[in-house]
């Protein structure tokens, strides 16, 4: 009995974790901050040896890009 319960609990915990991860990702994506881990993995796989931005640098870079005037980005009006 306790075994089954703990298995169930672990399963739910995992699901809860997944929901949390994806919600946080979606929330960040809404405000123009893409997933940092994806970026790191991309850099490691495709540009080995090149410097990888820290999360802080990555965030500042993305924030500037979202509002960069020269990109003429449009958002929420109607």
């Amino acid at each position, binding site marked *: 009995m306790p075994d089954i319960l703990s298995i169930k609990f672990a399963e739910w915990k995992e699901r809860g974790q997944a929901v949390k991860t994806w919600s946080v990702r979606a*929330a960040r994506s809404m*405000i123009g901050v893409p997933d940092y881990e994806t970026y790191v993995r991309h850099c490691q796989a495709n540009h080995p040896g090149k410097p990888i931005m820290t999360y802080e640098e*990555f965030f500042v870079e993305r924030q500037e890009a979202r509002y960069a*005037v020269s990109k003429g980005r449009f*958002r*929420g*009006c*109607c």
Partner: protein
Amino acid sequence: MSGLVGSANGLQTKLLWAAIAALGAVSFGIIALSRGEPVNAAWMVIAAVCIYFIAYRFYALFIANKVLGVDPARATPAVRHNDGLDYVPTNRYVLFGHHFAAIAGAGPLVGPVLAAQMGYLPGTLWILAGVVIAGAVQDMTVLFLSTRRDGRSLGDMVRSEMGAVAGAIAGIGILLICIIILAVLALVVVQALNGSPWGTFTVFCTVPIALIMGCYGRFFRRGRVLEMSAIGFVLLMAALIYGQTVSQTPALAAYFNLSGPTLALVIIGYGFVASVLPVWLLLAPRDYLSTFMKIGVVTLLAIAIIIVRPYLQMPALTKFVDGTGPVWAGSLFPFLFITIACGSVSGWHALISSGTTPKMIENESQIPFIGYGGMLMESFVAIMAMIAASVLHPGVYFAMNSAAGIIGTTAAQAAQTVSNMGFVVTPDQLTQVAHDVGEITVLSRTGGAPTLAVGMAQILSSLFGGQALTAIWYHFAILFEALFILTTVDAGTRVCRFMIQDLVGNAIPGFKETKSWANNLIGSGVACLLWGYFLYQGVIDPLGGIWTMWPLFGTSNQMLAAIALVLCTVVLFKMKRERYAWVTVIPATWLVACTVTAGLEKVFDSDPAVGFLAHASKLSTAIAAGQVLAPAHSLGEMSRLVFNDYLDAALAALFAAVVISMVVYGFLSIRKALGTPKATAIEVEFAGAGAAVGGSSA
């Protein structure tokens, strides 16, 4: 490619879809046919959701598979240019959230509220029909076109597919809509805060709160956006609650009890400052807060409507379908469609569907879900706004949405006038509503936002808090609308600045340099002057501003949608898919008819309530005779009104001219495409199977 009409999944699926269709039809019958008795809002929700499901399952997938020929094997820009930053293959649910957060705005909240003057039915019918045949088709097709072109912008695509002149015309159209949108949205905020110390205090507080958030996320916990947003939200709620004390303390309230013109100047100043300050300090934190508030409140409202299931007090049709209504002027065609605009089809979305979303889409097969599905969601927001406006007592609705020039300034006068319109209401009812929501008065609070806020407060307080919290909910709703509208204003001013720099830069190349402080200050200044002029004009307009400005805004928005759909049609012809071109030709024709009719009527109609020139000549005649016509107060005011009439007439004519010239260029491009035996659409080369444009996916 999966079978189109559920044949693969057998009888069960067919039965399920038949049940959805039947349920939708029954609900629709109830909202359309019941007369006299109040209808429950639940029927509206069910009808809408059934229609969305059917439209998505059958029409969206038909367009994707047969018309556009989406190719799941074809690499998207996110895959080809993956850089982990701009181009990132993104999970489709996450991207749906991103896309919806980008398209959702004030338009679908305000338009349906104003449209309710004709009753809930005409507006609801167009919100549902329009999204299925026009709005969602546009969003999805533009998303598809941009995805096939490395995520290029609408203006770029018009230039490359239809020529440089057409591109330049579209560019002017985009600048115009930007200016008008900023002016109208700012006007909505001014009307909502005018003479409301509580609302003004809370909205002003968002600035210091954003500064705190900005510094926290820059110096203290760099990049912790969710943390800083949570802190911001808590501070915002504290400001909201303290706002009640402010409004009840005369010494404090005096500072925040501002007149319309003062508020307009403050907002213009704010737009200028916010657009030149570093983004991390003010603009970004406000943006984060407003995005999360927007998504949160829309979700909350949906839940509340489903649980509370309020009754609609507004009749299905009012006598104002004849075009004599006090909220906005003009007959059902084209002005109902112009008024609703964004909730069923929004040209603005063409800019977003060709912005960041196409750079993040993982696979072409997700285009219907993101593009069509995202717009269905937006339409649902419009339905909720319609419900919120219709749960109000119609007498209260008309007293709130008619200008003081029409209903007078006291509760007794207003109740008398509105009752004479056929919506019997007592002065006590009107003052009671004001008292419930913690305002001095609710009369002539035009602009849609306060009406929506009263409706939302009524629905949300039935769910949490009851009568005691109505005032808090009302100001929460005002805060939510003002917050994200003002975020649009500051971000939009930056976009406007860029477009002006780009335009002027063609003549003076040095002005294009966006790193120069002088250029930025001048560019932002010019942008603020342009939209600020229209805002100020709207605020001092004796007819309440929205009366004049909203139709202009709607026309410009639908004009952009017409441009986008003409582009989509041209590309379908160039892809040699003319067999299916009706999918975009039908909505394009409709939008061209609406915008051109509206544009011409706004200029030439002989009714001074509709036609700007007729209004100008009526005023000029009076000026010549030395008369001051109400609601103007002086001859000087009258001549200013005449000038503005000519200005607005010129704008409306310009909108019509832009649409007509785009149609001409569209025809030229189509003729050229028909004369060429090969597909000529300019897509990014694709090395792999099915590379030919318009491959064999059908």
